[in-house]
């Protein structure tokens, strides 16, 4: 296959993927909307659409900025360093670095998921990426300060924060075990 043909195939399969995604999201949204209409009435549907629209407008700018930052980090951070610090042989220390990064990474999913994709391309392994995401989601320092302490009180918020600290390590360790098993079974089926 020439490279031109390959890129055409890639592009059209990308388009098919987008069409599939669109169909799935569209049907789930219609389904949820119908439920909302049946159980809560037309006003609730109208309010939901209004909420979603204003969130979309608010998010659009941050989303683009998040994507730019994540891609830029992927280009600027040297690949050999990422794979040494966060690669599959980075061990417990790699999970620790990923956890610490996740805890201090501010911002919503519009920034963290593109960042995970960039780090993955730069050589970070699944275990470290999952430790990062778990720490970002469950032990975020910025969310603790902005949301949890004001809304749920210092005692509860600190308790929740403290018990969440081991979680990224557990998830990262388990993810490495699972990924290794995935790979082993893949090699076996290749051989057989």
């Amino acid at each position, binding site marked *: 296959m020439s490279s031109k043909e390959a890129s055409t195939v890639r592009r059209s399969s990308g388009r098919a993927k987008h069409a599939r995604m669109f169909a799935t999201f569209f049907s*789930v*949204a219609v389904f949820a*909307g119908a439920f909302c209409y049946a159980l809560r009435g037309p006003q609730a549907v109208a309010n939901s659409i209004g909420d979603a629209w204003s969130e979309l407008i608010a998010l659009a700018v941050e989303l683009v900025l998040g994507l730019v930052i994540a891609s*830029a980090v992927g*280009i600027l951070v040297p690949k050999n360093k990422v794979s040494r610090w966060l690669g599959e042989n980075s061990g417990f220390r790699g999970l620790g670095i990923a956890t610490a990064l996740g805890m201090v990474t501010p911002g*919503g999913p519009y920034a963290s998921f593109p960042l995970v994709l960039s780090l993955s391309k730069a050589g970070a392994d699944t275990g470290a990426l999952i430790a990062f995401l778990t720490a970002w989601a469950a032990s975020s320092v910025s969310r603790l300060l*902005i949301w949890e302490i004001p809304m749920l009180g210092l005692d509860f918020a600190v308790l929740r924060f403290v018990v969440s600290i081991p979680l990224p390590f557990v998830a990262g360790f388990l993810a490495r075990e699972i990924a290794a098993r995935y790979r082993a079974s893949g090699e076996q089926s290749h051989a057989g």
Partner: protein
Amino acid sequence: MLDSGTIILIGVASLLVGLIALRHPDRLGELVANVRNQAASILISLPFGLLIAAFVSRLLPAEIVSALLGRDSGLLGVIVASALGGFIPGGPMVAFPIAFAMFQMDAGRAQMIALLTSWSVFAVHRILTYELPLMGRRFVVVRLAAAAPLPFLAAALSLSFH
């Protein structure tokens, strides 16, 4: 419309793009292509993700859920909380008010911790909107399997702090 968070993001983004322009000017095209590809995937899922979250947040029967998560609901309450948490839609501006309401209705601490941990690691809307389009199915499956025990673990740890 420009809050301090956005201004910080603008600052960081300009700094990083500036660095690339200085050090690797040949790779600016790659940056633009990356951003465009990822934006295309997310822009399909994002509007629907937000819409689904908005619908589900109105469907959520907060009173029933908090009755299930009361102080005396025990292990069953922790299991219910772990299972339901991931379905609380939206960001912290939706989840924390719901958690606050449940707290007022006397939900137990271990159950609340299971609920919030499950919401943070399993958030279904976030998986559908961002993780699946960007990282693919295999990554999501491995992450969900690895994260499955976390809400229980957090709840169990919280009991040891009395």
